[in-house]
């Protein structure tokens, strides 16, 4: 059996960031304990000895909960599943983790960190409502390296108020000099049910053209600094592409545990209730199947074209016909590249990938 990934959703935050629509609750030590127990119970409910090769703690703010709980969860995974982890990641927030905590993570077998840096500019961080400063991030990166981490990813956001190509260049130049191997870069997206979804915020954001210019600059600048783009929003030094995240884009299976976590396991996509109380109080209830026949043509195309390496045209029987109609114009406008049997998007194409993909499915 092909090993699967495991995603643990840790739904606690010290404070909710005004742009974030991921599920989280306010931290309380009782809630956290019952949450941890529920996670372990749910792990145990999966088939014994399921082969696992990646583990990912995401959130929420996983670094907020006591590290011994993380360890207990890891132990449960190790004892119940057949784990040969190539990559075990935890998302951490600067300011919340100190050297000791990072060192503890490293000692329990976590070998990759994803640090929520977001920006190297304190004004931009303030706009995002982040509680940390660039100095906090810098310390965290240094501590992580000192604690022995050799696979560190940093989040970097673009499309912030006041952000310019020049401030972005500064952030990138600063980051690439540090001992990090991976950068995930997101365009700020205004989600519906967040405080950021209001005219006073939206009107302060860069316009479509400015966004696009920043993105194109970023791709170019990261590439020339040794961080090759391998997905729309992901860049890595050679050999440091995220194994866990690649599973999503390659339509591979993963088990998601935690309220609001999604899974693709045993041929089905399903999600668990977005409700911590339900999650902790019931055993297995609350799974909702969202797709009982994943891996469809559309899904594979949509996910595959997110990757820089693209897709094999011959794997998609109707693609040739669609490309005949629009391919020429797309090539002319440098939105796609076709090399032999491989179709991939350019950086310009990534920027309008929704339109391109929806015209090809």
């Amino acid at each position: 059996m092909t090993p699967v990934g495991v995603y643990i959703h840790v739904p606690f935050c010290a404070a909710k960031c005004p742009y974030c629509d991921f599920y989280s609750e306010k931290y309380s030590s009782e809630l956290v304990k019952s949450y941890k127990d529920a996670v372990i119970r749910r792990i145990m409910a999966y088939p014994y000895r399921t082969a696992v090769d990646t583990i990912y703690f995401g959130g929420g703010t996983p670094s907020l909960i006591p590290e011994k709980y993380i360890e207990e969860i890891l132990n449960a995974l190790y004892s119940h599943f057949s784990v040969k982890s190539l990559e075990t990641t935890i998302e951490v927030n600067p300011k919340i983790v100190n050297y000791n905590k990072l060192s503890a993570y490293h000692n329990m077998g976590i070998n990759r960190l994803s640090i929520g840096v977001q920006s190297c500019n304190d004004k931009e961080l303030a706009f995002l409502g982040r509680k940390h400063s660039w100095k906090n991030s810098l310390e965290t990166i240094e501590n992580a390296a000192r604690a022995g981490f050799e696979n560190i990813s940093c989040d970097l956001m673009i499309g912030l108020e006041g952000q310019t190509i020049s401030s972005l260049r500064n952030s990138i130049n600063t980051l690439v000099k540090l001992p990090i191997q991976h950068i995930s870069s997101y365009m700020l997206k205004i989600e519906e049910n967040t405080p950021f979804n209001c005219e006073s915020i939206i009107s302060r954001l860069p316009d479509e053209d400015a966004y696009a210019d920043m993105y194109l600059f970023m791709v170019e600048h990261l590439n020339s600094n040794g961080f090759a783009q391998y997905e729309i929003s992901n860049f890595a030094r050679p050999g440091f592409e995220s194994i866990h995240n690649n599973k999503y884009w390659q339509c591979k299976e993963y088990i998601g545990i935690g309220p609001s976590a999604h899974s693709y396991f045993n041929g089905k996509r399903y999600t668990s209730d977005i409700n911590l109380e339900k999650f902790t109080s019931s055993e297995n209830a609350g799974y909702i199947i969202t797709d009982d026949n994943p891996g469809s043509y559309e899904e594979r195309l949509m996910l595959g074209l997110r990757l820089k390496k693209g897709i094999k045209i011959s794997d998609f029987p109707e693609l040739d016909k669609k490309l005949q109609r629009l391919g020429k114009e797309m090539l002319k406008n440098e939105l796609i590249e076709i090399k032999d049997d491989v179709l991939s998007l350019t950086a310009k194409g990534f920027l309008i990938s929704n339109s391109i993909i929806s015209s090809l499915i």
Partner: protein
Amino acid sequence: MSTENIRNFCIIAHIDHGKSTLADRILEKTYTVAERDMEEQLLDNMDIERERGITIKARAVHLNYKAMDGKEYVFNLIDTPGHVDFNYEVSRSLAACEGAILVVDASQGIEAQTLANTYLAIEHDLEVVPVINKIDLPSADPERVCEEIESVIGIPAMDAPKISAKAGINIEEVLEKIVTDVPAPNGDPEKPLKALIFDSYYDAYKGVIIYVRVKEGQVKVGDNIKLMATGAVFNVVEAGYMDANNHINTGSLSAGEVGYISASIKSIGDTRVGDTVTNADIPCDEALPGYRKVNPMVYSGIYPADGAKYGDLREALEKLQLNDASLSFEPETSIALGFGFRCGFLGLLHMEIIQERLEREYNLDLITTAPSVIYKVKLTNGETVFIDNPTNYPDPSILAEAEEPMVKAEVLAPSDYVGNIMELCQERRGTFKDMKYIDETRVTLHYELPLNEIVYDFFDALKSRTKGYASFDYEMLGYAPSKLVKLDVLLNGDIVDALSFIVHVDKAYSRARKLVEKLKENIPRQMFEIPIQAAVGGKIIARETVKAMRKDVLAKCYGGDITRKKKLLEKQKEGKKRMRQLGTVEVPQEAFMSVLKLDE
């Protein structure tokens, strides 16, 4: 019943002056409808009518009234369409009556349709009974309005009932006026049958039901009747009258009476409004005067937004035509819009009503092309052709002379707006005829205008330039020579046939400019840059560009919500289906519709 006690009348009014409400009250007061069954504006039973407050199809109701003189009377209330598009139908309804109640709003006074309808009634020798409505409004000034009626129309109005149809005030006065002022019908029941068709509709069980006014003779169940214009002969199955909801089959109708005939008539095309019904065995010598075949004045292409609904659209049009012989349609193909129909309408309102009914009652999503009038074009080979579709407009090299239909328009408005109205009519290539003061503050203006200038949005423009105070009416005048050109629209270099239209040469440039701007507003950014061009005879006279889209991306996509993201993309793909794919360009429905309203 002796004809002495019959009163056949209609109600005429400007839109919103309260015609339908008064009809409702009359129905109530004569106990034709119990108050609790009363639906607002009962006579208008189509949703659209009720919403727009206009009556589209005439109907007739038989009412019993015991007057103050102690006698029983039969009232036949014939409801008339209130819009200029249906002028011919109005004239046939009037021809079925002896009297007309003229409803005038106590604060607004005389409006364009008040005049048009009154003149039409007087032309048909009807006794006009003025009624002042809405006296309960704070702005009501019934005395002034009475004076206005006397001075402008020239009929006595000082003893006109002053009523509020809405509040039910003084309705009895109106009923008594009908008894005393509207003449009883005359006509000899012994003469050969002569009955006027003033309306018809299709009943799924009985076939076409015709509404008639018997002028001479009588008609009984079992008689063979002949419809004189078409020559069709039918055997009468039912004859009688209508109360508010039902047909009452009395077995016969005789001179002076108004009622319905059912005779297993299959096609509404056989029963033309204005035609004369006679007895096939003992026919009358000549038909009643005034019949004419109605011809569409305005044409437009109607296409289903979703090409797969072509069959549904055809079916819906066929059903509408069962009840509306003035609607014509034939299949048409557009490169841009696919399969659809070229439809002919009596006028703009008729067109809007049909479109709205198709969308509402038949749940169709439509794309309509710019309305076109019928151009008369002489070719260099001496041939004359009529063009109702811009796509078929002949090449300038074989065109000798073009003519366009003209109308005589009457605009009534407060004198403050005369400047604005003149400016508008001037812009629309109008020729000023005359201007008269109705009273110190209001004027009526006459213009000759090309029909093609008013089919788009003239009425809207008029309303907006007169703060809604102006009223407007028009009648056809015939054809006049004109310098016309065909304006084509090119998207990404290809002509979009559905967007072509014919325009006067002097207006081609400004129209073209507005058109490309409108299209730019309504065509979303796409993967590629799209040039929008307008051309006359191959020469580009206006251009805009829709820039390429730059950002349309789901930045974050992890395990969390692949299903949701997939659905998002599928939705986006579905959205594309609502767009027309023209080469590499996707054109939303709204873009086709936006060009219909260039002056907004």
